């Protein structure tokens, strides 16, 4: 992967000036290349990684396994695109194994997620079955550990 993307994936707030220093290029060049990535749709957005367990909000996340009957034309694409349009669906992957689609779904409470599954998802033509797991606690999200563990301190000066 391009070094510039690695830096932004790690910290999207890194300033073009600092990136320029790290990559030995001009600030203008950095800005230009970020714009190009955005235009090509390689960079599709910038988000904060939030530990929502620490917020006092009632919200429910569920992981849902879905089996689907693939279609003669397009395979899983039509059903997947249809499902991904729902705002409740945070992520959607086609996977190998016992089921076909893996969904991460967000809702206000248990009831709203349940009704999304039973009324919206399960009723889509081609969806054969669903298994819903409610999430209890987040330990790691997007490569970031959500609980700070006690760390050993390094010596302040060493040879």
């Amino acid at each position, binding site marked *: 992967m391009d070094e510039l993307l690695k830096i932004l994936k790690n910290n999207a707030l*890194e300033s073009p000036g600092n990136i320029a220093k790290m990559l*030995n290029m001009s600030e203008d060049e950095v800005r230009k290349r970020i714009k190009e990535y955005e235009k090509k749709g390689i960079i599709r957005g910038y988000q904060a990684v939030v530990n929502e367990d620490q917020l006092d909000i009632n919200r429910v996340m569920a992981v849902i396994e879905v089996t689907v009957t693939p279609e003669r034309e397009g395979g899983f694409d039509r059903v997947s695109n249809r499902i991904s349009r729902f705002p409740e669906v945070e992520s959607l992957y086609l996977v190998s194994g016992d089921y076909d689609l893996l969904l991460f779904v967000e809702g206000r409470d248990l009831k709203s997620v349940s009704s999304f599954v039973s009324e919206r998802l399960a009723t889509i033509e081609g969806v054969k079955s669903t298994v819903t797991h409610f999430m209890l606690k987040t330990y790691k999200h997007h490569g970031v550990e959500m609980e700070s563990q006690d760390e050993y301190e390094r*010596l*302040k*000066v*060493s040879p």
Partner: protein
Amino acid sequence: MNTKDSKCPRDPIAAHLRDVPRSGIRDFFEIVSSVPDVISLGIGEPDFDTPWHVREASMFALEKGATKYTSNMGLPKLRKAIARYVGDTFHVSYDADREVLITVGVSEALDLAVRALVNPGDEVLYHEPSYVSYRPLIQFAHGCPVPVETRREEGFRITRDRLEERITERSRLLILNYPNNPTGAVLNREDVRIMAECAREHDLMVITDEIYAEMTYNGSHVSIASMPEMKERTIFLHGFSKSWAMTGFRIGYACAPPELTEAMMKIHQYTMLCAPILSQEAAMEALNEPDNDIREMRDEYVRHRNYIYHAFRDMGLPCVEPGGAFYAFPYIGDTGISSKDFALRLLEEEKVAVVPGSAFGACGEGYVRCSYATSLEELKEAMTRMAGFVRRITSC
């Protein structure tokens, strides 16, 4: 005659030890420790944690009951893995049974190597500015330390002229350390070839401390042990502290022809017995997938290196672009204050710790060592504060 009155109290400390000063780094460490909330660029170890698979393997080894002595030379499987790694990476082939000795960090290996080679009064050449241990270890072995100056204008690379100036008929040994702590300098293939030629011409033994070899950013690392007819006169030192971020495991090794290894082994078996078995097990795991572990760290060091090098240039501090290790060694002599005062005032006024260059030998005066093995956030903040400090002291 009253013998009682004429007797001076005897100095209980051995004479050759009295002349060895405490490490300048240690003095500075004590000062820094007394100041809270310091951003430290004074740390000579990676800021990465040891790769998780290595830590996990050590726990598993402990569970299995790896709590006993190992053979003096070290675990046979580890010596095999090391011989393979050194062969692949440094292009020197060592026999795992007779030419690889596992030690408690490269520090022990260095001590063994110096003691195995030096007779009282032998002159030992080493380049300065240098890592703090070389000179004292030579003195502990009753040798005469002979520093060879390296200069900024020459990229802190040791040159034939400066080396030959210091060679006498008592010269016995040359210690090399590239990539270098504290300057970040590296030698290219031609430099290494010239050093090998000098060693052969003047019949010098060589100890090469290549602990930072994997942290080479411009071009590829060349070991002097791989040069023609050099293996037989070289003790090659390497370890896991820097490349695998395993400083606290204290695990390193020496590779050398059988008679040299046997000589080092004699001291090792009577003093240390063996390196800790858990650390040996951890090292074994580290060698399972070396490239993956090292690549990520090296990429980050390169970005930090570029950042700090540009930052010094923007501050107007002359600095050689470091080609390896994780140190930059900017020249602060134009500010008009000594490197010690610079470091002390930077600490007091800006709470940023760097190490005075004078801790690395007389010719380190006028420089400070800045380690960039620290988080980018801290590095950025440290550079901002240092820039303000430099502006302030140069304008008044």
